[in-house]
């Protein structure tokens, strides 16, 4: 009798704990959302009461500035593809036993990681013509972004390749697979799975870094915002639009990136 009521008490107790936990989770979420709403609302309200926000400007020029987002995304998608290709070769070379190949890749990584991205962008666009290498603005921007991210991603890919258990490679070798096939068929597919979330992460970072390409007159988001703001003497509104678009873009892509990461992690179990 006593044990029965004890068991009942325990399950009731556990039920209550669960409910309390759910309530506390719910209240956390509500307060969290409220904090955001209050902060963002307060900011919007503060800007509003200054009376310095010109809504007609936003109406008139908003679509043009927004149009730059397309070019920003195009720049980033193209660059991330090239960067990934560069990074795959870079990582294989960085792991190579051949001192020359390894040296070339290490120099690339060191050079790119040791210089600011903006210097690389301006160099490709402005300095190379002096050597008779003339690249139009948009391809120059894509080159600089791919080159830069390729170097950072080389290190990520190298870690990814090294994270593939050595037993995999040994097993393939034991089956008599030639070295290049071991890499292509066994190691790389597994490494890519490991690094895909990191590529997504870099893509989100690149959306923000791509704003630097505005210095070589590529008419992406920031270029448009700056020029439109300057021309109409409405810099605050113009930069607010640009900042908001970058923010939304990073939120959207981060969301996809997180889902991708989840999927990848599930496959691993």
């Amino acid at each position: 009798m006593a044990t029965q009521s004890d068991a009942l008490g325990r399950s009731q107790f556990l039920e209550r704990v669960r409910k309390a936990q759910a309530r506390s989770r719910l209240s956390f979420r509500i307060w969290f959302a409220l904090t955001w709403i209050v902060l963002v609302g307060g900011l919007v309200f503060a800007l509003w009461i200054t009376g310095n926000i010109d809504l007609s400007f936003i109406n008139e020029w908003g679509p043009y500035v927004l149009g730059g987002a397309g070019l920003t995304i195009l720049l980033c998608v193209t660059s991330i593809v090239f960067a990934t290709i560069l990074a795959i070769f870079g990582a294989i070379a960085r792991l190579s036993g051949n001192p020359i190949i390894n040296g070339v890749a290490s120099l690339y990584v060191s050079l790119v990681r040791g210089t600011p991205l903006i210097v690389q962008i301006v160099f490709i666009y402005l300095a190379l013509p002096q050597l008779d290498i003339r690249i139009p603005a948009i391809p120059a921007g894509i080159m600089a972004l791919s080159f830069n991210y390729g170097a950072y991603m080389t290190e990520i890919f190298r870690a990814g390749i090294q994270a593939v258990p050595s037993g995999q490679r040994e097993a393939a070798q034991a089956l008599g697979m030639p070295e290049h096939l071991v890499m292509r068929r066994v190691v790389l597919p597994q490494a890519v799975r490991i690094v895909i979330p990191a590529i997504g992460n870099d893509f989100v970072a690149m959306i923000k870094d791509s704003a630097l390409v505005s210095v070589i007159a590529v008419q992406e988001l920031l270029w448009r915002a700056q020029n439109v703001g300057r021309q109409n003497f409405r810099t605050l509104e113009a930069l607010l639009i640009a900042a908001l678009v970058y923010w939304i873009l990073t939120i959207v892509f981060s969301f996809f990136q997180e889902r991708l990461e989840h999927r990848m992690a599930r496959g691993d179990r």
Partner: protein
Amino acid sequence: MNTWRRFVTVPIAAIVLAACQGSAAEITNVVCVGEATTYLDWLNGDLEPDEPDPIAEADEAGDLLETIRERGTIIVSTDPNYAPQSFLQPDGTFVGFDIDVATEIANRLGVDIQFETPDWDLITAGNWGERWDISVGSMTITTPRKEILSFTQPYYFTPAALAASEQSGVTSVDDLSFELPEGAEATTLPTDANCAEAIQAGREEFDLWVSAGPTIDEAIGSDIPIVKVSDSIYVENLAVAIDKSGPEHAALLYEIDRIIGEMHEDGTLTDLSEEWFDGEDLTQAPGE
């Protein structure tokens, strides 16, 4: 308690002091100008206005003109922020006096037009790398520029003007405690409109701005808190430029020069000037 007080009062005192200095200071001798402009040369005392070299007829074969005709498009560099000469529209196209002049040149060449928007200092530095064919960007002909660029005859003339921020209280050159340009110190921003933008933003690094008269009028028309202090410091010859380091372009230069002469004669340039510069005809050479 003592340390606490020191930590609070010292920064506050510093801020108050700095604020007092800011408001009580007399007008600084810093003048804002666009990068690589003749206004900067003028302030530095090395402005050398010049005339275009004589232009002779040339063979079109192998000339940039032939390339442009084959391409069917002329690529023109322009500043996206130089109202009323050249500025953006909400649909992403450009309008303005320079834009209309360039479009008319393209029409008379029988080709389409495409605009590029490199920074001004890139255009004046030459070495365009064949990214654009010509500059129709209100460029003053100067001796140093003539070493790297070929110029046509001027298509119009603008007075350089001096503006002061309203809060400086300057209304005439006599209010300045220094001589212009000798006593002035130049500070440059990427393009002329940046100076107006900085004054509007309440920056106090400078109170004075030298730019083209129409550009300053435009800023005043956009409610920038500035006043025009001097109307005509000097007058500039503004012409179409072509990069000397680029391909052979004698025939193109001759053809564009001829078209500009034609546009002067048939009144096209006068009409465009009156349209964009509040009824003013800036296409007549001063003193003529």
